[in-house]
């Protein structure tokens, strides 16, 4: 039996390749994700070891508000006294006060230079540190800096030239005194842009406090262990300080990056899962067609005494063989893709991250084989059962198997679709990811089961549009010939398109909702904001600028806020210190629920009803608020405002609270223009006030909304790219179905050619069949996707999704893409069909 199976597999190479390819792509995605993340993980570990190689012990102030960001140097500062104390610790060798903060260099085009995730740092120059001068000299004067070689390359700066930087203060210009690199001839450690100032300048611009340090780095004297020194420093300074060994710091940083990478890995694996799910459809279909085509052969085996179990065995064994081969090929391809992506990441994305060699973790190998074989066998089970039920007498009958009734799949499909819908509804309402995922899975299978029933009317309508000629009519009839086969092929395409459409509907609804709120409720005409403003964001401006804005003619009212992460009763919140609460109320159209809108007195705060409920407070309650700097303070709740879609989940503090914020500078300002004055005229007067800060933009309301929405477009693009694989696999499915159909209908094609059908007409016939299947799949996907999206938007109504937006243009383009996919998928089968030898085809068995 094994020999017969292997011979059968090898004798049908095309079939092997096509059904195997779907698995290969899925396995490639899975193992590629593991290889990529493992390689990056090890490379980052090595990077952090390098960074902390000359640090034995480092001292920092314990952050008051927990932060995800290790570079938040402004968590608190150390003083010269602290430095002196550490220097006096027994066994301390070289002790250096660090000054590290954010410094964003401005490029030649006047815009701030960006990195892909790595920080843009400012430091104080230290002789004898890791930085090694390559050209020029160290900065000596206050208007001199040294820059990292990577910054010099990125911005095109050389020694003696001018460089402008934004720090806590707006744009300031310096002379490049020197360019430095790092040990191992590196331009940067991990793609970061570093500028080194003189100590005093660094303290003023980066920390905002003369004489302050962000941390203290200690090297142990010879013979003193890191741990021992750490304990001594800790004892000397007390518990308010965080003292860590270099090893610990390196591990902490690596762990944090590792967490991000493993999340990244999960996302990739999720998309790989979708691709494999689609692959199951393809394999299921392929095996079904093969079993149908081999009915007589299998029945003959039965007639000769093969048992039902042996019949199942042959089909499953064939699946195992294909799965095994596909896993090996997929693993190989996955290692290649993982290595390629890691290289792209290290050279393009992450600047100069050094790869520590491509590694193939055991998880990649195990998952490749597990996924490849399990998926293939799983997909082959149903066709195997069908093969086992073929009666021996079928060997003697003509092959034509009657259409089986669709009652059972329809009932099962309805039940599964309903169950899946229920799971999804619960999942969206409760934000339960597992419910959403299982709901998607169940409802996709349910819809797939319903597809043969839907296919009859829908396919005939699509087909009519394409069948203006005889070949077209034949193609349409062929696509309706085997509803199950057409349905599964189309369902595979449905999955990818449904997910893309669902996401599009949600994102379009988000945009529509934002726009609606902005246009309907918000009266601010101009919005001043930074590229990355928000809690922990860098782009801020001096409060004085807001006063200048307020004095401009044509400005009716204006206000602004400082923002920071804060803790309210120990819970992390987004805090804003607002300059003028009544103006905010007026511009944002807020309404009070408890209390009244007025300027907040010192020691009082305002919050929305949801936040109040979450914190369990009401008007008059007192809460403890911890800001980045200073001690925790008690605030009384003066006002609870009604839930709205403009100011969501923000704790409103009086302006004075900003003194204890990480950066005592405004992050946003809002301007309402006087009646009868053109917004553009006022915008022209406001813009010059921020001309020295390219990070800050002044936008009118609709431009601001557009910018917010464009971030969603990036999300959509990423998802589209990742789902493209699922669609690619579905295309393989269409090719597969067509190729097998062409083989099955060889004699028919021979007949058509014999009675005068041209090659081009044969190709057109196959193409129409292909396009009908693809467009049907796309329509299903659009329908299911819209239902998913609408359901999600409805369920998220309380989260600000007030309006439903249907992305008609995008959906139209998906339909168009599906038609193109149909044409492309038909190319090879059509050529094969057109090249058939007429005489051989007619006598084909």
């Amino acid at each position, binding site marked *: 039996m094994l020999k017969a199976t292997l011979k059968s597999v090898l004798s049908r190479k095309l079939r092997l390749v096509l059904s195997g390819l779907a698995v290969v792509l899925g396995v490639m995605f899975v193992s590629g994700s593991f290889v990529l993340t493992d390689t990056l993980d090890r490379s980052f570990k090595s990077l952090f070891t390098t960074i902390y190689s000359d640090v034995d012990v480092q001292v920092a102030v314990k952050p008051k508000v927990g932060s995800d960001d290790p570079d938040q140097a402004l968590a608190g500062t150390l003083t010269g006294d602290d430095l002196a104390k550490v220097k006096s610790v027994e066994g301390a060798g070289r002790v250096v006060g660090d000054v590290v903060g954010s410094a964003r260099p401005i490029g030649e085009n006047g815009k701030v230079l960006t990195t892909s995730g790595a920080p843009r740092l400012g430091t104080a120059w230290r002789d004898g540190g890791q930085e090694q001068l390559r050209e020029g000299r160290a900065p000596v004067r206050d208007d001199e800096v040294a820059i990292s070689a990577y910054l010099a390359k990125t911005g095109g700066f050389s020694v003696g030239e001018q460089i402008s930087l934004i720090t806590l203060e707006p744009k300031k210009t310096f002379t490049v005194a020197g360019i430095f690199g790092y040990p191992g001839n590196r331009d940067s450690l991990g793609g970061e842009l570093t500028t080194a100032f003189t100590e005093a300048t660094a303290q003023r611009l980066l920390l905002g406090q003369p004489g302050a340090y962000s941390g203290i780095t200690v090297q142990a004297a010879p013979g003193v262990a890191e741990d021992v020194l750490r304990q001594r420093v800790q004892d000397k300074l007390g518990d308010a300080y965080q003292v860590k060994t270099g090893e610990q710091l390196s591990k902490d940083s690596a762990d944090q990056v590792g967490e991000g990478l493993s999340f990244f890995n999960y996302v990739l694996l999720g998309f790989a899962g979708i691709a494999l799910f689609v692959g199951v459809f393809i394999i299921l279909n392929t095996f079904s067609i093969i079993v149908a085509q081999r009915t007589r052969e299998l029945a003959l085996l039965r007639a000769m005494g093969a048992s039902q179990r042996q019949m199942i065995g042959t089909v499953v064994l064939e699946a195992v063989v294909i799965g095994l081969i596909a896993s090996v090929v997929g693993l190989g391809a996955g290692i290649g893709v993982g290595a390629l992506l890691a290289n792209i990441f290290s050279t393009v994305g992450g600047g100069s991250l050094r790869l520590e060699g491509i590694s193939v973790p055991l998880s990649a190998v195990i998952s490749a084989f597990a996924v490849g074989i399990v998926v293939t066998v799983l997909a082959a089970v149903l066709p195997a059962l069908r093969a086992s039920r073929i009666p021996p007498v079928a060997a003697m009958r003509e092959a034509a198997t009657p259409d089986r009734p669709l009652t059972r799949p329809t009932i099962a499909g309805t039940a599964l679709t309903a169950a899946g819908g229920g799971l999804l509804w619960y999942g969206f309402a409760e934000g339960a990811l597992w419910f959403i995922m299982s709901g998607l899975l169940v409802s996709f299978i349910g819809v797939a089961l319903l597809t043969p029933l839907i296919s009859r009317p829908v396919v005939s309508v699509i087909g009519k549009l394409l069948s203006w000629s005889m070949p077209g009519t034949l193609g349409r009839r062929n696509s*309706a010939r085997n509803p199950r086969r057409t349905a599964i092929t189309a369902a595979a395409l449905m999955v990818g398109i449904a997910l893309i459409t669902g996401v599009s509907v949600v994102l379009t609804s988000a945009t529509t909702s934002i726009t609606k709120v902005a246009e309907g409720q918000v009266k601010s005409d101009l919005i001043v904001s930074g590229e990355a403003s928000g809690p922990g964001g860098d782009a801020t401006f001096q409060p004085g600028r807001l006063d200048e804005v307020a004095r401009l003619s044509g400005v009716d009212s204006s206000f602004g806020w400082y923002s920071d992460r804060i803790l309210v009763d120990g819970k992390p919140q987004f805090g804003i210190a607002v300059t003028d609460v009544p103006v905010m109320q007026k511009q944002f159209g807020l309404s009070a629920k408890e209390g009244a809108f007025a300027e907040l007195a010192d020691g009082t705060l305002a919050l929305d009803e949801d936040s109040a409920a979450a914190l369990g407070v009401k008007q008059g309650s007192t809460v403890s608020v911890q800001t980045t700097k200073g001690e925790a303070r008690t605030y009384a709740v003066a006002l609870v405002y009604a839930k709205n879609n403009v100011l969501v989940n923000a704790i409103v503090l009086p302006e004075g609270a900003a003194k204890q914020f990480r950066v005592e500078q405004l992050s946003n300002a809002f301007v309402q223009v006087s009646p009868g004055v053109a917004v553009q005229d006022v915008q022209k007067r406001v813009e010059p006030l921020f001309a020295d800060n390219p990070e800050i933009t002044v936008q009118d309301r609709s431009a601001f909304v557009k910018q917010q929405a464009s971030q969603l477009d990036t999300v959509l693009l990423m998802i589209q790219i990742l789902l493209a694989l699922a669609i690619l696999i579905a295309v393989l499915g269409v090719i597969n179905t067509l190729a097998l159909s062409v083989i099955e209908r060889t004699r028919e094609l021979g007949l058509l050619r014999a009675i005068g059908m041209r090659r081009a007409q044969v190709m057109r016939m196959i193409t129409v069949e292909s396009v009908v299947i693809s467009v049907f799949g796309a329509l299903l996907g659009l329908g299911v996707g819209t239902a998913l999206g609408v359901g999600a938007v409805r369920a998220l109504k309380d989260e600000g999704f007030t309006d439903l937006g249907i992305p008609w243009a995008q959906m139209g383009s998906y339909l168009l893409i599906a038609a193109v996919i149909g044409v492309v998928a038909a190319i090879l089968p059509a050529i094969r069909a057109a090249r058939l030898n007429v005489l051989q085809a*007619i006598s084909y068995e």
Partner: protein
Amino acid sequence: MTGKTESAARAVDVWKSYGTGEAAVTALGGVSVDFERGRFTAIMGPSGSGKSTLMHCLAGLDTIDSGDVWIGDTKVNGLRDKGLTDLRRTKVGFIFQQFNLLPTLTAEENITLPPAIGGRKVDRAWFDTVVDTVGLRDRLSHRPTQLSGGQQQRVACARALVSRPEVVFADEPTGNLDSRSGAEVLGFLQRSAREFGQTVVMVTHDPNAASYADRVIFLADGRIVRELHQPTADAVLETMKHLDGDELVVV
């Protein structure tokens, strides 16, 4: 420059062999034959005599090594795929032994398939005449699976005739039918030659089927060895026996 107009199909010294070198088998060894317009000709011969090859070469389904093949005044050899397709579309009708119809089309659609493929209009009067002659009027909207074998073959006959081709080639058209259905099909082919002046060339190994033809040519080892006009079944059977005898003598 052109073929004789009185012959619907003509082979002139046609040679055809399969395989190369030692393994080469001569299928046709210098066959010359005229098929007069409006006559029903049967080609007979034992298995391997080359009768099917001759028909395939005449119809442009197979290529020849040397000689000339004409359909009407079109020279078949030398045509490329497009020319051959056009030839089959307009000048040739086919009836095969089995699998003659497309399962997705109704009887009527199957009959009108050649003009539909060629983008030509169907001559409705001629269509009606043909359909009534084969007796399929009440079966036009049926699918092939709903028709008996004999009915399917009559649909195929109607399809072959509907474009009024120069020649209808029938390859063992009764091979899969019971004797009654076979007689119906043969009777129809005979009538189409006599009443409509349709040239018909039929390959068969059944003497009874051959007796419907106006003329029978006998092939053996790739050569035409005998010819009978207005044959009876007995005469054909007798000739076949002699052929077998000749073969025995030769071998």
